[in-house]
């Protein structure tokens, strides 16, 4: 909990206990070897202390068996540590499918967050207890890092790309949110809190009117129409731009023969720098929207695109590399 002195950090996420178990194993291991070395050094230094009447006894050459022993034992130990740490790390990088999505934009020196349902927050994140939460993050300016010590998770928010992290809070309360990557003058003041609530309470909070302005799909659709995206991406055959419905996380083939997955970063690039990756079968006519859409606007657009229901009959070629048409980046002029 915030503000209370303790020598142990609060554990408030499902992963925290696993991380701490490994941490304390490492503490025990370190203590064992530190004491071992310290005792040996002190004991040898005292026992073999120079005395005037004592003849120097030369020691023999190094013993090969001993050298091998103290090479192999540490090696086995560190491999165990590696495997243990890697296993938890893989979990940290595998969000459950049902994770609740929250969008995060870092800027000097604040965190701007938005829930899919529309509610916006600054330097605060409200989440329900017992439900996995996935953050999709970017930055408007320099690198920041989203750090919740009580959850034992941290991830940089990098300008120009999306990074993600997930956690599941398992304890109601308020926890520190820090920016962990140095970002300028007020880096130390780019802090906030994560508020973990009972699910019902969270729902009430989420539907509260304060700071709320329509859900992200609705605002994304409004922005989509305002920017005139539908004039090319109307989703019909023969349209100037590829259809967007059901596109997210599908493989697409580009004009230059590459195949890419249409993930968040790809969608973002296709809006800001459309010529970088044109879908096969379309002309590179889409203008850039750089400077016209804010980072939050981009996230809303993407939430809208992701929300579009996949066509009932997926065209046979839609998932087949080489013929896919369902893509974004071709545009017939600003609408």
């Amino acid at each position: 909990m915030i503000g209370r002195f303790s020598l142990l950090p609060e554990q408030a996420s499902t992963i925290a206990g696993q991380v701490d178990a490994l941490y304390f194993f490492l503490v025990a291991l370190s203590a064992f070897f530190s004491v071992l070395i310290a005792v040996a050094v002190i004991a040898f230094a005292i026992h073999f202390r120079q005395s005037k009447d004592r003849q120097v006894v030369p020691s023999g050459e190094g013993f090969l068996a001993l050298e091998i022993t103290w090479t192999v034992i540490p090696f086995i130990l560190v491999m165990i540590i590696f495997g243990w740490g890697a296993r938890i790390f893989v979990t940290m990088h595998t969000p459950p499918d049902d994770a609740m999505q929250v969008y995060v934009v870092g800027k000097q020196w604040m965190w701007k967050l938005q829930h899919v349902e529309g509610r916006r927050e600054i330097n605060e994140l409200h989440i329900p207890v017992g439900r996995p939460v996935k953050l999709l993050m970017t930055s408007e300016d320099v690198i920041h890092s989203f750090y919740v010590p009580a959850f034992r998770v941290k991830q940089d928010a990098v300008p120009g790309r999306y990074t993600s992290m997930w956690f599941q809070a398992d304890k109601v309360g308020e926890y520190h949110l820090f920016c962990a990557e140095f970002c300028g003058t007020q880096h130390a003041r780019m802090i906030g809190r994560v508020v973990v609530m009972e699910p019902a309470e969270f729902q009430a909070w989420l539907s509260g009117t304060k700071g709320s302005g329509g859900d992200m799909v609705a605002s994304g659709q409004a922005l989509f129409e305002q920017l005139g995206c539908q004039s090319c991406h109307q989703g019909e055959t023969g349209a100037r731009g590829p259809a967007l419905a059901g596109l997210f996380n599908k493989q697409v083939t580009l004009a230059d023969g590459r195949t890419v997955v249409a993930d968040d970063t790809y969608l973002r690039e296709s809006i800001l720098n459309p010529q970088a990756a044109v879908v096969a079968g379309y002309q590179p006519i889409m203008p850039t929207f750089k400077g016209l859409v804010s980072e939050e606007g981009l996230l809303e657009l993407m939430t809208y695109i992701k929300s579009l229901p996949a066509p009932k009959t997926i065209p046979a070629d839609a998932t087949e590399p080489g013929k896919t048409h369902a893509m974004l980046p071709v545009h017939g002029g600003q609408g």
Partner: protein
Amino acid sequence: MTETVVHEAHDASVNYLNADYGVRSWLFTKDHKRIGLLYLASITVFFALGGLAALMIRLDLLTPAGDLVRDDTYNKLFTMHGVVMIFLFLIPSIPAVIGNFVLPLMIGARDLAFPRLNLASWYIFNIGALFAAWALLAGGIDTGWTFYTPYSTMSSNSNVLSGAFGAFITGFASILTGVNFIATIHRMRAPGLTWNRLPLFVWAMYATSIIFILGTPVIAITLLLMMIERAFHIGLFDPALGGDPILFQHLFWFYSHPAVYIMILPSMGVISEIITCFSRNRIFGYSFIAASSIAIALIGFLVWGHHMFVSGQSANASLIFSLLSFFVAIPSAIKVFNWTATLYRGSVRLQAPMVYALGFIGLFTIGGLTGLFLSTLATDVHLHDTYFVVAHFHYIMVGGALMGYLGAIHFWWPKMTGRLYNETLAKIAAIIVFVGFNLTFFPQFVLGFLGMPRRYHVYPDEFQVLNVFSTAGASILGIGYLLPVLYLIWSMRYGPKAEANHWGAVGLEWQTSSPPPTENFDHTPVVTSEPYDYREPVEVKKVA
């Protein structure tokens, strides 16, 4: 043992210090010993500057509100501390001061292979260092020593260009030193001094030189690219210009992780010399210690990605970098075990250099073991960019590298100056440093685990208790560093004169007078046996 020949042929009262007088004789010297002392003077000044910044930082952190200095000032202070301590003190410390002075003596050479390059390196270092120091003092830099983009290129309003240019210039001094050492070790060893007989300090200098030569160009290029983006807005690292900020981190750590080994390997070499001399014993596992230096230097180039586990680097890359980072732990462990075993059945004398060396073993062990927490993926996610990291690398770079440096200064001081310092004071200072250091940095491990981010000038109240401990420790540590400056300077004028071989050591550098003559040896020594051959009492045959 070496067929030792201390020649009485030359006038023993003439040595490298009094062979010539005047400022010119120093500024234009090509004598490696004098250049070592020139470096000593330069880096001592920079150590004081970096220490002053540390003092301000610790004072500010005494209270959570950050009320001593303003936000920007604090950011400039920790940048100054980092840039000065790393580029202007730790990297040149042992190689350029101790290495310059004793490496030719240890291998029975008259000088380094390229004495003019050696002098040039000192000038280049000072030009770069003054550039950086000017940037840091006149206006300051607020990026941290890591210069992360796009903050450094597009956001910071401080003297990034001149500071980075200064660091860029000092890199050339490192390269020249590295080239010089490698050429010298290959070409100028005394007859009979085979690779298997090389003192381990020389092996450590060899490994360090490899990193100087392979790594320094990369940081030079990286800093140059960063400067180009900042000055001309050519998109390299800033995504707004089409660049990739994570590319900068890859390039930066490709040098800056091996740079940690530039700081610690020389100290490891020093420890091998001191431990053997003060336990009157042969080194345990000579070839393992020598090989582990080279292994650290080489594997050290493959682990840079462990600084980037939460940067947005792919999880697969992180897995591989984590695995490789554990490999580099093994040679370090081997060294610690072998040093400890060297004490066994020795005849241990706890004189000042030995106290520093044993302190090194303790602090380096903790520093190395806490490195495991940071190469472990799951724990690093939590500990990255917290005070845990700050504590860890200070245990390595201050507890390790700086203890080694102080040990080296105390060990070779009689050789360098021909004078003896006060042994009691020196031991007290070593103990003060050890205690002060632990009190300063151990609480920071706990702070990091609790989640206090580094580079925080204002922090939540619950972290204050441990910060107070840390600041208290730092003031003790400061006294521990001030003491040697005083009694060492005092000894230069008033200290008793030192014998040629004050410690009764077997290294070649002890077989010539203290201080040595300008040409080091009157006759080229011939080596006939292994190093650290302390079985027989040291004999010094005097040839008329």
